[in-house]
């Protein structure tokens, strides 16, 4: 029952946000709702490799950035239509993930995290230096869509919303199926999984590729949305960190966790931005530390009585 209820609730919440944003017609609300969809897509995708499989990937920025560049180069350089360019962003990111899977998925724990973190840095330098393709540090300006400003804002909301919904649906399907089983085995005891016949290498590669699709597409859509990208913006390390915080907030390894986590994170981000402009990143950092220390299972595990007693919750034990 639990498996069905939470995704349903998430869907309803998403629809409510959509209705609110489009009906209100308020540019700020629409921008918030669009960002929420972006965050849900990134967090839900990260959760497939980071939550289900327990492989702490910091490669989201790499997938997002390479998707953004693929989409931008195709549109600005070759005049490819926007929807096709957006899809290509996802395909290029998936190809990167497939290659990456062969190289770094045999690493475990911190080693995997560090290896995945470096990928975005390498790609940023490539984007900086390959001037003939990417225009280097000057960045790429994208052609604007020939529709009104408000219609554009609404269009991007629906596109991000569709990608977010698809990535949540994909996570839900993975969770219920054989792949989800295999990934949970990998997360809880990889050696035992091998001994029971689970092809852990293939399962992990599939998870990494699945977790790259939505970020790649969203990177390309994002580039069109803001109509200009440069290497620093496209491969921003915060794109890797934020989805992890969201998943931690909402509950790692659950389908609905990243959805709620993304909403909670966005709310906190807005709060910090407005009230602590200079310190907001410091405040976010503090939040991460508190989360990891006291709520490794996410806010869904908060029990008021336990909060009063002020004891760290039991960490979900990981076997080596």
């Amino acid at each position: 029952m639990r498996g069905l209820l939470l995704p349903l609730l998430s869907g309803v919440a998403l629809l409510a946000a959509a209705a609110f944003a489009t009906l209100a017609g308020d540019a700020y609300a629409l921008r918030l709702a669009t960002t929420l969809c972006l965050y849900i897509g990134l967090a839900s995708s990260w959760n497939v490799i980071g939550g289900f499989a327990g492989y702490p990937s910091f490669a989201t920025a790499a997938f997002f950035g390479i998707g953004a560049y693929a989409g931008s180069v195709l549109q600005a350089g070759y005049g490819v239509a926007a929807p096709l360019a957006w899809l290509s962003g996802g395909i290029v990111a998936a190809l990167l993930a497939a290659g990456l899977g062969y190289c770094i998925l045999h690493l475990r724990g911190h080693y995997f995290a560090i290896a995945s973190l470096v990928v975005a840095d390498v790609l940023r330098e490539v984007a900086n230096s390959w001037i003939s393709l990417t225009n280097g540090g000057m960045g790429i300006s994208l052609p604007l869509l020939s529709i009104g400003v408000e219609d554009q804002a609404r269009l991007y909301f629906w596109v991000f919303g569709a990608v977010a919904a698809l990535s949540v649906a994909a996570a839900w399907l993975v969770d219920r199926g054989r792949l989800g089983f295999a990934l949970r085995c990998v997360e809880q005891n990889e050696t035992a999984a091998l001994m029971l016949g689970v092809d852990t290498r293939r399962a992990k590669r599939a998870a990494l590729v699945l977790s790259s699709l939505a970020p790649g597409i969203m990177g390309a859509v994002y580039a069109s949305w803001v109509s200009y990208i440069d290497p620093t913006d496209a491969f921003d390390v915060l794109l890797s960190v934020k989805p992890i915080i969201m998943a931690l907030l909402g509950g790692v390894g659950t389908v609905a966790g990243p959805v709620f986590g993304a909403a909670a994170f966005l709310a906190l981000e807005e709060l910090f931005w407005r009230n602590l402009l200079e310190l907001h990143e410091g405040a976010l950092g503090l939040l991460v530390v508190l989360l990891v220390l006291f709520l490794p299972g996410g806010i869904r595990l908060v029990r008021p009585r336990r909060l009063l007693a002020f004891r760290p919750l039991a960490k979900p034990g990981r076997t080596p």
Partner: protein
Amino acid sequence: MTPALSDASSTVFRDPPLLELRGATRRFGGILALNDVSLSIGKGEVVGLIGPNGAGKTTFVNVVSGLVRPDAGQVLLEGRRIDGLPADRIARGGIARTFQVVQPFPRMSAIDNVAVGAMFAGGIGDPAAARHEARELLAFVGLESVQDRPAAALTLADRKRLEFAKSLAMKPRFLMLDEVNAGLNAAELDSALELVARVAGTGITILLIEHLMKVVRRACPRTVVLHQGRVLADGPTAEILADPRVVDAYLGVRDRARRPGIEPRRDLA
């Protein structure tokens, strides 16, 4: 090459043994954990593997199951080489094992733990059907009352039985039970041995890795003794356990009193 020739000639006259090791060797640093071990086990046999701590028993299991590659030598399942294959392929090929230190998926229910074996090696692709099969196996090993609990919440004896059920779910042809009986009390031991006998009755070939000699004597017609990585003795259990070399290697000459879990000499005769 000659091995290929001898393969061909032997298959002409009889079926290859279910499992065969030819000169399997594995080194860890300066220690030869397995030293030129050659052994064959026929279909349907129940064989005991004993030896003192550090004799290489667990390395043997790890080499056969593919968790560790042999540095030299070959491992063959029904005449086909399996050494060097990924461990999960060997598992799907019909070799199951349990771990001396139980290795459950701690936050999965007992049912799901067993269903994994059915789904990925037992040929039942559908999760619902695999869970159904898992329920039957849990009943077979006597765990139906705790089937929905997470594995981490089970007692040690129950987790040992869970390991057993997981390996049975794989529908193996060859099953290695690595000290499934360690840490069990007398009553638990009796029921565990009865399970082994029932599984052997279904035709699954079993290698019982043991520390307790009385277990081997009760369950295994044939026993192999490993000592310092070598096969010290191999034959009918009663003869092996009476062999003075085995007694010396197993108990040491002097420090028998200091080894808990090993029975006094009078029990060997």
